[in-house]
């Protein structure tokens, strides 16, 4: 490791949308030093921004709006610096989400977040380990194996407008995008921080990513 390699300004957005503790712990176990941030200024200062999230789409967007963070996150994304959304954090990258009554998202990746149409007899939410089928190469999947399992917990799924922005798919009754990306913005439906070694690899890749692909 070259000296200074780990000196990035790694920020985890922490606005009470749940579960920043385990993400922070996972990053620390990899030797990174994440900061929990909650203001537009801190987001502006970040070199790498993580959007975690548990909860409902609408509630999350209202919370971000209230805190004046919608523009801050969009502004950050425009700088070309790496942004990773996890679970609900991935879903709110979309243009619109149906959960909680319908709400516009951050609109960083074109698409809608709709109820997972798993079909009759298939239990919702989709909770548990499931296989991720890689669709195209991306730096965040470097050194991970194809067709291995990651941990999912969700009832809604991303419907990407552009097929080439879907980097992996997963099957739960239906095929849905489990990773989406556009330039420096990336989102994963699963929880890398809960997916043991492959998940940790993705987080480590993110911290080493310069936002280009």
């Amino acid at each position, binding site marked *: 490791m070259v000296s200074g390699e780990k000196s990035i300004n790694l920020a985890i957005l922490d606005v*009470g949308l*749940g*579960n*920043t*503790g*385990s993400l*922070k*712990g*996972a990053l*620390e*176990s990899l030797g990174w030093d994440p900061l929990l941030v909650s203001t537009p200024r801190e987001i502006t200062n970040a070199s790498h921004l993580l959007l975690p999230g*548990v*909860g*409902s789409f609408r*509630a999350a967007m209202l919370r971000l709006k209230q805190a004046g963070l919608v523009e801050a996150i969009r502004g950050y994304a425009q700088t070309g610096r790496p942004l990773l959304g996890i679970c*609900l954090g991935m879903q709110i990258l979309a243009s619109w989400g149906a959960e909680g009554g319908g709400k516009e998202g951050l609109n960083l990746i074109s698409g809608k977040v709709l109820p997972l149409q798993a079909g009759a007899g298939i*239990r*919702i*939410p989709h*909770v*548990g*380990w*499931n*296989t991720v089928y890689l669709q195209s190469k991306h730096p965040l999947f470097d050194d991970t194996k194809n*067709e*291995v*399992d990651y*941990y999912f*917990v*969700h*009832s809604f799924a991303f419907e990407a407008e552009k097929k080439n922005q879907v980097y992996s798919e997963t099957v739960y009754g239906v095929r849905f995008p489990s990773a989406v990306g556009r330039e420096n913005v990336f989102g994963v439906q699963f*929880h890398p*921080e*809960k*997916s*043991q*070694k*492959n*998940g*940790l690899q993705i987080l480590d890749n993110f911290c080493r990513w310069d936002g280009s692909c």
Partner: protein
Amino acid sequence: MRFDPGRDVGDPIKSSQVYSDQDADELILLNIGGMKEDLQLFSQTVREIAACCFVPLSVGGGIRSLQDADTLFSAGADKVVVNTAAYHETNIVTEISQKYGTQAIIISIDYRWSDGGPRLFSHGGSKEENITLKKHLENIAGKGAGEIMLQSMERDGSMKGYDLELLQTVAAMVPAPIILAGGAGNFFHLVEAFQSGADGAACGSLFNFGDNNPLRAKAFLKNYKIPLKTI
């Protein structure tokens, strides 16, 4: 151990880390002194476990309000396990599911067989609830439980195998995945649980005592063609 007499099986933080490294799919941590003990103290343990475990962590014991759940989620819990509150304060279940999503709540049902039927208990198994299983499931339906954990009190710690009797009944009544708890004593008990249709099988004594671990359990299940995760 959930029900009297309790047995000390060591440090929850060290054990959790080992189980996480040994490829456990998920950890469930229950604060068995739930009613009396300080939630802040418990949340500190949760925080320490979350810092070293990279698998899903479900925690419960003594959750009586949305604020209690907030405390545990912010400590790193992925899901909370609610039992007592699901009987008389179902609004708490609704509040938690509205804020964190239904997948973030497990409703645990502690029961014992008596006169040919299951009797339900709250408060860590100490108080019998005067309600049938069917009615209880009706009451909590639509309140936002993402998973149901069926905990057989008689089998807990017995290592005699899971109680499979209620699985079909409950599965027919609720759309949520079902976790069986209480009684796993060998790997074949896990096979039975999955072959009977359980979505999850919780193990305590199986791994706490003896030389068994999640890696070996899963190697065994693989021989029975039980679908497991690929890593």
